[in-house]
C-alpha cells in the first residue's frame, strides 16, 4: 500500500499530464459533435469583440479590393434597379395586377449585409465570423453569399456575432445542392480538403453533357440558397462510376479576400421544411 501511494505521489505530474490530455481530447470530440451549441467559439462576446477591434485595423489593408467588389455590386444592383423600375411602371397601369405581384414579392428572400471580422482558413475545421447576430436577424441555418458566389451556412449565432461554416469544411461535410447552368439535373457539392480553390461535385448523371468552363449554380432545391447563385466553373470532370460524374469545380469566391457578405433570410424556410417533413412521414408510413 505504501509503495503504491509513494508511486502515485512520485508520478503525480504524469497523472496530471494524462488528465489534461484526456480533457482536451474530450473537448475535441465534443466540439466536433456539438458545434452548434458550443459557446466556446468566436460567436462568444469576448472573442467576437476582440476580432471586431482587430478588423478595424485590418480593413485598411485591403481597401482596394473592397472598393472594387463594392463597385461591382453597385453596378449589378443598378442594373437590377433599372429592370425593376421598368417593371413597376408597367404594373402601375394595371392596379389589380400590382396586388398579386406584392404578395409574390413578399415571399422573396431578403438579405442582411454583414462584415467578415475573422476568417480561420487553416486546416479542415475552417470557419468565418460575422459581425451580425440574432439581434440583426441572422439565425442558424441561413445561407451566406457575396457578390462572387456562395460562401457557406451559418452554424452558430449569438446576439451580435455569428459563425459561418464555409463550403471549405471537410469535417462537417456539408453538401450543397448544385446544378450545371441550363441543365435541370442537380448534384451534391462538397469540399474534400486541401486546395481552397476547388470543390467537388458528385451525383451528376452521365447523360448530362458537361464541358470544361460550364457554370455551376445553386439548384434552389433546399431553401437555404435561392436558385441561380454562382458557385464556380467546371475545371475537370471524370466518370466516378457507371452512373455518375465527379466534377472538380473551380470556386468563384476567393476565400482569402472576404470582406462584406450577405446573409440570406428566407422567411418561409421553416414552413417549407415542415411541409416536406410531413410529406416524408406520409410516404414512409
Amino acid at each position, binding site marked *: 500500500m505504501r509503495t503504491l501511494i509513494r508511486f502515485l505521489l512520485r508520478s503525480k505530474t504524469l497523472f496530471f499530464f494524462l488528465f489534461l490530455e484526456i480533457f482536451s481530447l474530450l473537448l475535441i470530440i465534443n466540439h466536433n459533435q456539438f458545434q452548434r451549441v458550443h459557446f466556446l467559439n468566436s460567436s462568444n462576446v469576448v472573442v467576437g469583440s476582440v476580432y471586431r477591434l482587430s478588423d478595424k485595423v485590418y480593413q485598411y489593408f485591403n481597401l482596394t479590393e473592397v472598393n472594387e467588389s463594392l463597385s461591382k455590386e453597385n453596378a449589378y444592383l443598378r442594373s437590377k434597379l433599372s429592370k425593376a423600375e421598368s417593371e413597376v411602371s408597367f404594373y402601375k397601369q394595371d392596379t389589380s395586377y400590382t396586388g398579386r405581384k406584392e404578395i409574390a414579392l413578399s415571399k422573396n428572400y431578403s438579405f442582411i449585409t454583414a462584415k467578415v471580422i475573422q476568417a480561420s482558413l487553416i486546416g479542415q475545421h475552417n*470557419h468565418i465570423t460575422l459581425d451580425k447576430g440574432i439581434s440583426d436577424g441572422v439565425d442558424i441555418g441561413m445561407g451566406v453569399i457575396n457578390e462572387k458566389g456562395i460562401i457557406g451556412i451559418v452554424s452558430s449565432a449569438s446576439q451580435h456575432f455569428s459563425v459561418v461554416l464555409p463550403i471549405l469544411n471537410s469535417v462537417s461535410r456539408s453538401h450543397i445542392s448544385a446544378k450545371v447552368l441550363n441543365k435541370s439535373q442537380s448534384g451534391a457539392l462538397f469540399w474534400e480538403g486541401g486546395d481552397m480553390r476547388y470543390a467537388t461535385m458528385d451525383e451528376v448523371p452521365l447523360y448530362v453533357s458537361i464541358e470544361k468552363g460550364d457554370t455551376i449554380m445553386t439548384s434552389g432545391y433546399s431553401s437555404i440558397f435561392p436558385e441561380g447563385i454562382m458557385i464556380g466553373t467546371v475545371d475537370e470532370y471524370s466518370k466516378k462510376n457507371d452512373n455518375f460524374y465527379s466534377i472538380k469545380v473551380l470556386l468563384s469566391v476567393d476565400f482569402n479576400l472576404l470582406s462584406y457578405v450577405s446573409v440570406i433570410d428566407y422567411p418561409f424556410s421553416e414552413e417549407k421544411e415542415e411541409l416536406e417533413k410531413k410529406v416524408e412521414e406520409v410516404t414512409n408510413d
Partner: protein
Amino acid sequence: MINETLKHIIYFFVLIFIQVLVLNNIRFLGFINPYLYVYFILFLPSSISKDMTLCLGFLLGLIIDIFSGTLGCNTFATVLLAYLKPIFQKAFGPREDYDIVFPSLHSFGMGRYIQYVFYLVFIHQLVFFYVETLSFAYFWRTLLSAVCCSIFTVLLIICIEEFKERR
C-alpha cells in the same frame, strides 16, 4: 522575482495576441502559419514546477483554440509540449550546474538551442496537425504542413532570440 512573474504574464498575453491577430492570418502558400505562441513554454525557467508548466500549457492552448475555432487541438499539443519541455531542457540544457536554467540561445549555445527548439516545436506541430484532421487519411499532406510550419516557427524563434541577445 515579482518582476520575472510580471514579465512572463505580459509575454503570455502578447504572444497570444500576436498569434491570434497576426500570425493566424498569414497562410503563406495557403497553409503555412508560424505557431509562435509555443515560445512561451520554451523559455520558461526551470524554477517553474512541472505541474505549473502543464497548467500554463493547458491555459495557453485553450485560449488559442477558442480564438481559432479548433477547440482542443492546440490544447492537446501544447500540454504535451509542456510535459516534454523539462525532459528536453535537461537533455540539451547547459552542462554546468546552475540553480535555475533560463532556456535561451545564450545559455544553451547555438547548436543545442536550435535542436531543443526544433524537436519540441516539431513534436507539437506533428501532434497538432494529426489531431486536427483526426485521421491519417491525409497523411502526407498533414506531414508536409507540420514540417513547413515547424521550420517557419523555429526560424522565427531563433530570430527573436538573436534579437534579444544583441540587445
